C-alpha cells in the first residue's frame, strides 16, 4: 500500500462545508477547533474556487521537524499523528505548517493554549485502538475499522478524495480524462481555473477577495 493522502478536486467542491461538519461531529471536536475547513478563492465572483483543507499528512512533515518534544510521528501508512500526553502546546508546529492544520483549543483564561489538535486521517492516536481514551483525545479511529476518513467518504460531490494515494490519484485521473480538455487535463489550470475564466473575471471588472 502506498501512502494515505487527501486530494481535493476544486472543480467539484461546492463549499457546502459538509466535510467540516462531518469531521466535527464524528470526533466530537471542541468549540473553537476546526480540524478541516473550506477555503474559497475569489468568493462571490463567477468562477470562484473552493478547496477543503486539513492536515495534508506530509511525507516530509515540517511539524515533525520543529516539535521540541518530538511528540509527532508518521505511521506505517504515512499518516501524521501525535501524542497529546507529550505535547506542551508550544505552537511551533502551527508556525511550521503551511496549511494551518495544527489547532489549539483555548484551555483556560488569558488565551492559554491547550494541547495541539489536528486531523488524524480518522486514525486516532497512540492509545488502544477504539478505546474510550483514544476517542476522548483524538476522536474515532475509522482506519482501524477498515474505513476511510469521514470527510472524504461523505463528500456529496466526491470533490474530497481520501485514501491510498495510488487509488485516489487513479480516480482523479479518470475523472479528469472524462471531463475532456486536451493537454491541460490535469494541472494548475484545471484545478484553479483556465485562462479564459481569468479573462472572464477581468472582463466582469471585479477584484478578487
Amino acid at each position, binding site marked *: 500500500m502506498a501512502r494515505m493522502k487527501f486530494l481535493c478536486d476544486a472543480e467539484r467542491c461546492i463549499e457546502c462545508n459538509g466535510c467540516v461538519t462531518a469531521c466535527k461531529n464524528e470526533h466530537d471536536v471542541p468549540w473553537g477547533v476546526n480540524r478541516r475547513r473550506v477555503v474559497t478563492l475569489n468568493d462571490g465572483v463567477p468562477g470562484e474556487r473552493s478547496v477543503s483543507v486539513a492536515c495534508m499528512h506530509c511525507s516530509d512533515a515540517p511539524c515533525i521537524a520543529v516539535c521540541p*518534544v*518530538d511528540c509527532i510521528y508518521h*505511521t506505517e501508512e504515512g499518516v501524521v499523528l501525535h*501524542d497529546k500526553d507529550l505535547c506542551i502546546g508550544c505552537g511551533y508546529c502551527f508556525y511550521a505548517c503551511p496549511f494551518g492544520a495544527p489547532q489549539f483549543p483555548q484551555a483556560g483564561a488569558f488565551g492559554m493554549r491547550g494541547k495541539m489538535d489536528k486531523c488524524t486521517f480518522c486514525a486516532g492516536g*497512540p492509545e488502544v*485502538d477504539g478505546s474510550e481514551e483514544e476517542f476522548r483525545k483524538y476522536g474515532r479511529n475509522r482506519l*482501524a475499522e477498515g474505513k*476511510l476518513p469521514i470527510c472524504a467518504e461523505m463528500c456529496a460531490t*466526491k470533490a474530497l*478524495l481520501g485514501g491510498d494515494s495510488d487509488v485516489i490519484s487513479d480516480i482523479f485521473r479518470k475523472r479528469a480524462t472524462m471531463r475532456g480538455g486536451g493537454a491541460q487535463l490535469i494541472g494548475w489550470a484545471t484545478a484553479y481555473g483556465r485562462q479564459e475564466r481569468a479573462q472572464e473575471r477581468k472582463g466582469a471588472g471585479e477584484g478578487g477577495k
Partner: protein
Amino acid sequence: MKKSVLIVSAMLAAFGLAACGERPQVNVYQQGKYQGKADTAPYDNPAFGKDKAKWEAAVRARGQGQDEYTRGG
C-alpha cells in the same frame, strides 16, 4: 622606550587577533526521534486479526467506493 612600545603593541595585536579564528557557527540539524507512546498498526485488532492484507483490501475497496464511474454498476 620605543622598544617597549613596540613589544606592548605587538602583544596587544596578538591578544586582539587571538579570537579572530573562523569557525563554523551553524550546528548541524539533527532530526529528533519520536518520544511518545508506541502506536499499533490499524490492522492489529480483533476485526482484522493482524492480517495486513485483509485490512488493505478493505481500505482499497472503500477507496474505490469514491469512484462514481465504477460504483453501483
